[in-house]
């Protein structure tokens, strides 16, 4: 794996994992909204 591929992999993994975290945050607030 060269440096460019590694940089691309790092950014892709970071974005995916960050998106998962955001989805859990918004998702659980939505559960609260729907139940109240």
């Amino acid at each position: 794996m060269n440096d460019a591929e590694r940089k691309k992999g790092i950014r892709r993994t970071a974005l995916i994992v960050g998106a998962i975290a955001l989805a859990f945050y918004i998702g659980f607030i939505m559960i609260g909204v729907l139940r109240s």
Partner: protein
Amino acid sequence: MSTTVADLHDHHDDHGPAKGIGRWLFSTNHKDIGTMYLIFSLVMFFVGGAMAMVIRSELAIPGLQFVHPEFYNSMTTMHALIMIFGGVMPAFVGLANWMIPLMIGAPDMALPRMNNWSFWILPVAFGILLSTLFMPGGAPAGGWTMYPPLVLQTGDAFPYLIFSIHLMGISSIMGAINVIVTIINMRAPEMTLLKMPMFVWTWLITAYLLIAVMPVLAGAVTMLLTDQFFGTSFFLAAGGGDPVMFQHIFWFFGHPEVYIMILPAFGVVSEIIPTFSRKKLFGHDSMVYAAASIAFLSFIVWAHHMFTVGMPLSGQLFFMFATMLIAVPTGVKVFNWVATMWRGAMTFETPMLFSLAFVFLFTIGGFSGLMLAAAPADIQYHDTYFVVAHFHYVLVPGSIFAIMAAVYYWLPKWTGHMYNETLGKAHFWASTIFVNLTFFPMHFLGLAGMPRRIPDYSTQFTDFNTVASIGAIGFGLSQLILVWVILTAWKGAKATDRVWEGSHGLEWTVPSPAPYHTFETPPKARIANEAFE
């Protein structure tokens, strides 16, 4: 656009650490940031420990001695928040920062500038939290679980509590992103996932847990904030909300949080026991699957914390059996540690002593956990000192002993010198005796019906409380030995690169102390293979 380690190393090849305070404020070096995390957590352990001393002094004899009951409640609340979010979690993040790049042959964490942010958010968060001690109405006193409607009675401290929890969450999430990205993208050539050391594996699983549950905590406290200040009624019964829903959401975070604090400890112990048994870890792959199973199960057991709120029988049965199921992969781990030691050429240096105590005492915490998992019994144990005994056995001789084991194990690699083994053993024996003196009597207190979170108690509970208080003060004082060992760590004999005779892994192939930059070119496949075969 984020900055990756590849960017930084394009431009900064041959430099050592910066001079002065700037080295620490602006550091992007994983070793510096790891050191800062570890020092921060040590300070927080002493701050949280001082609060524990207030609690145990007040409880040493019946009656009100030293503090107002409201302040006592603040102490239990702040002690928990500081020990969990300021002590145990940052200590493991510090160990991850120092050791994961060294163990996988990476030059640094993948996102080094974000790493700097992850750390420096923490002192701000805890500065805000500790400042609430001086606010009108005092520090938060509704328990670390922040259940509404009680927590909404917090005084001026309330928004500061919520803000500090958000900051701690942001720091943890950024740290977890960094760990995942580093492990997925920066491993040495030939190091397949199943060849990774157990500490790296357990941290990868822990990081996924953090990504899933810290935002849930953030969501829960955001809803508390809007209930208090913006007229919503998520948890307010008067407005059509449901206070029990907070408990469900909180414990959906809270139970995996328990495993966030124990899985890296499993990883540490899985590194140390093979070294001092001079054998390979028994059942490496089964250890990985067991850790992953524990992580999965941790998401489906949350309601065992709230059997007493009233739930359908089917719900009680599901959460009871799912909780008991966790004993299976945990048992696999304990079996594998014992099997690793079986017929090994064992020696008992300080890291091994702490690891052995971990296996034995954590298992006691596991057994009392099984007792609490039984719904009918839990109705009796709920909110008693039995619960306090249980989770302190899991967290103190569990997580904290593993952190101590890790510090003794890797300290020579960090400093380049051997620590004082005699003092290390003195620290171990004092800690082990006093930790049991503190927490074992709490089982009896709980079974006899003493409730938790009270500053006074009925006189029949006096003797065990006095013993626990003596133990707590002894345990607190014993930790000064650790501080002395760390402060004098640079005076010991020069450490070899490998440090321990039975050690394996890439971290032992670099000099002691580990140079400021390591593995700027990835280790040769052959070396990586030899280290892990």
